[in-house]
């Protein structure tokens, strides 16, 4: 079976694997790498990663399905992860979730039909001092009220 990983990606995977005494230890960093490149992890990606690291594909599937950050389907261009934990909710986070759902026209877990936004409710993001907070892709935004949220959404092309 031919590989769905590019040569560049395959080389990067080998470099990551070389940082550990056991190749399998590189699995999480490798999956991050592939997901960043491709947007999500397909069954073919799982097969190829397994081959590259010399482990059974089921070992990759076990890991992909265990960790919440690994995705088996595409997300929107902007992946909004909003904290639904305690400190954020005490600072108005539940209202923020409601406003996001209304503005984007989707519920938590959904993606807009144009594929631009995915909205996910998550547990504590480790930014409680700026509650309520959310992440858009890898960027944190905190101290959000309705106006602040609207401004951020309008800035996303």
């Amino acid at each position, binding site marked *: 079976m031919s590989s769905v990983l590019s040569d560049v990606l395959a080389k990067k995977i080998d470099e990551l694997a070389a940082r550990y005494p056991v190749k399998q230890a590189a699995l999480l960093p490798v999956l991050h790498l592939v997901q960043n490149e491709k947007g999500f992890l397909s069954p073919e990606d799982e097969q190829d990663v397994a081959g590259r690291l010399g482990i059974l594909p089921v070992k990759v599937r076990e890991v992909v399905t265990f960790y*919440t950050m690994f995705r088996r389907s595409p997300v929107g261009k902007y992946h909004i992860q909003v904290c639904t934990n305690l400190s954020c909710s*005490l600072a108005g986070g539940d209202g923020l979730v409601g406003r996001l759902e209304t503005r984007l026209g989707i519920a938590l877990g959904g993606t807009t039909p144009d594929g631009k936004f995915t909205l996910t409710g998550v547990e*504590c993001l480790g930014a409680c001092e700026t509650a309520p907070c959310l992440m858009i892709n890898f960027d944190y935004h905190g101290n959000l009220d309705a106006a602040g949220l609207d401004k951020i959404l309008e800035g996303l092309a």
Partner: protein
Amino acid sequence: MTRATKVLTELFWLEHLHRIEAYLDRGGYQALKKALTEMKPEQVQEEVKKAGLRGRGGAGFPAGVKWGFIPKDLDKPRYLCVNADEGEPGTFKDKYILSHDPHLLIEGIVLAAYAVGIHSAYVYIRGEYELIARRLEQAIAEAYAKGYLGRNILGAGFDLELVVHRGAGAYICGEETSLLESLEGKRGNPRLKPPFPALVGLFQCPTVINNVETLANVPFIIQKGAAWFVEQGLPKDGGTRLFGVSGAVAKPGLYELPAGTSLREIIYTHAGGMKDGRKLKAVIPGGMSSPILRADEIDVAMDVDSIAAAGSMLGSGAIIVIAEGTPILHVLRKVAKFYAHESCGQCTPCRLGTSWIHKIVERMAAGGGTRDDVDTLVRLAGNIKGRTLCPLGDAAAMPVAAIAQKFRAELEATLERSAVRP
């Protein structure tokens, strides 16, 4: 007593502190130079023991004692894992060290590795901290280039390789054996202990696991001495603490204060008191898993032993302040949802117990509770506690039991008001 107001965060205001030039300008890597040229590894270990440095990750175990558990005569590699997973709700302290002062952490890592005879270390950082991980990697590259990492550090013949490893969104991986599994490229299912990681840890080798804040204190201990460090806190709990305050206070944020500072002082003097003049209802003093305290229980010293004596725990120093007007059921729902989501599913009492608790609490919130729900919650929590491989079970059970017991009247009143089934 000569107390510095701040130790770890004293220079956080410096611009570009995360770059090695700024770190060296302020006297960085001097503790490492001192240790490598003037001290034997055992002396470094002894100094940290005398300093009463308790682990800042949650358990509060003395760091020097932990290092001492690593066998000296085993012919195997040894590893150091730095726990930067920071997932306990309410906790954000390590993020500040990692992003503001990564070289302080790196210096602490090299010192710890030297003390224990370790030549390979990994920083396990939570997946969401992607940008912070990149900054840390940049700092590590700088340290390699200047000879503070890699082969023959400072010409003293000591080698250390340091790698950053990102997690991928699993609270359980903050538990040390789960962290090891995750670092080995597996699901984060905790291991049966014993054997403890000091004997059989990463890649089946002796392993030390320390929290970020714990290691960031080590350069100060070596530079200024154990006696000085003890003076910043308490004899059995040396140094300052990074308290992360969030919730209904006027000034949420990170506060570095001596171990043993009272919870009341932290809330009312440092965090600016209650937000909008609201009245205090309750405090979660050490991250979500620590048992809740009522408003009349906050005259307690915030050090590992005092808060344990008061029936809660210092945990990660994450203080969540709850005001009157917030239904306790709201707090309970957040707690129940979190642990039901984060239980790894390996141990039945935790997997089923957290999920049953979550369902019961949601039923209560939807107005469909039964009269004995509060008793059921307490019983379920009791059936989880102490019956799981790792402390997540206890972490889930303790706050549920504490809320149910301390706010029983309010919860039962909620049940009375709703259309309760008999």
